[in-house]
């Protein structure tokens, strides 16, 4: 069971209601976890907020990497969710803590990926790790962050192509709405597609 369930909300792509709703959905299965939102704007967020680091200021999804910093003020098992998820059933049988663990992007399995496009077949919409044990990811990013932000369109590509060690959850944890898996899954994910609350 997770000690901490974390969301990241930066900018105005998502509303506080996305955070509050996801908290409500997950609380049914994880009533004893603590819920946190790492955000630049805590207004109307109903769970404890961790303010985004003042330095370096980061935009969009790059803020997710700050969760791995040794300065991120949490301890214990962490479970992260992107805000465009819909929790339909208990996902616990799929959730494990084994180093850094992320999703296998089953929908990209047969996609052509030119090496210099840096596309990847993993997805960091759900992540597990133990707080403080993945600081090397943050350190690696910080060592040349502007270059990495130019080179990679997102953190998934950064993780794979900078050779960060990770594991993946078993298939069946999520269903990508844009690319249905056609088996029952506990979680629907929208991959940035707009959806109604």
């Amino acid at each position, binding site marked *: 069971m997770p000690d901490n369930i974390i969301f990241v909300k930066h900018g105005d792509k998502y509303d506080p209601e996305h955070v509050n709703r996801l908290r409500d959905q997950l609380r049914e299965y994880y009533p004893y976890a603590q819920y946190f939102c790492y955000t630049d704007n805590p207004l109307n967020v109903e769970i404890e907020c961790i303010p985004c680091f003042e*330095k370096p*200021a980061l935009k969009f999804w*790059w803020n997710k990497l700050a969760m791995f910093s040794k300065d991120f003020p949490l301890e214990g098992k962490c479970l992260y969710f992107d805000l465009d998820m819909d929790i339909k059933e208990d996902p616990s049988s799929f959730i494990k803590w084994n180093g850094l663990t992320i999703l296998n992007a089953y929908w990209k399995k047969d996609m052509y990926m030119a*090496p210099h496009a840096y596309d990847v077949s993993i997805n960091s919409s759900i992540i597990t790790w133990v707080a403080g044990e993945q600081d090397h990811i943050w350190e690696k990013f910080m060592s040349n962050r502007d270059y990495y*932000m130019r080179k990679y369109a997102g953190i998934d590509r950064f993780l794979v192509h900078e050779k960060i060690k990770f594991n993946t959850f078993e298939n069946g944890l999520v269903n990508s709405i844009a690319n249905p898996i056609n088996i029952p899954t506990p979680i629907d994910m929208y991959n940035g597609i707009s959806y109604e609350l």
Partner: protein
Amino acid sequence: MNYKEVLYENALQAIDEIYKRSQYDPDEDLYRSFDIINSVNKNQIASKEWLIENLVPFLHDDIKKVCVMGGWYGLSALMLAQHTNVPIDSVDYDPETKRIGKLLTRGYDNIQLITEDAADWFFHKPKRYQLIVNTSCEHIDQIDLDLMVAMKREDTIICFQSNNYHSIQSHINTHNSLDEFVDSLKLTEVLFKEEMKAPSGQYDRYMVIGK
């Protein structure tokens, strides 16, 4: 050949070397060649020419040492070196910029390429320079810009550029107008300020020269 032709020739050579190495080394970074191309694209050249045109009148005799912060592959330093022989330190924390920058700026003994976080570099020697150039303030935390202005010598001239290109991931400190940018720096004296539309038409670039 003029310096710009030499620059392009050197940039092509750097890209050529990357391609050749990539044929045998799976770890060769092909994106680096795209990054070199971007560093000398028409937006970069135009913004630096604009900088030089307006900064040269302030290159007087009591400027003994220049610091270019976030100097990338050394384009700003190279263009400044067309107008001054004083030492120019071009500081960038990307370790590859030194190796490639040496190629792009070869022949200019007064340019020193330094691998270091530009803000940290400056904070350890805030009185060393009489001119500080930073053409990428949109990448720099505001807290660091505030400290630079506060820690520099009173008579040190700063020439800073930023922009309103908000959509770029690494642009963490953009502004909505020239005046907003100038006001954010809290300078004691503004010697020059102007804005320019990027050749691509995608954004406005702001520049301020002051103390």
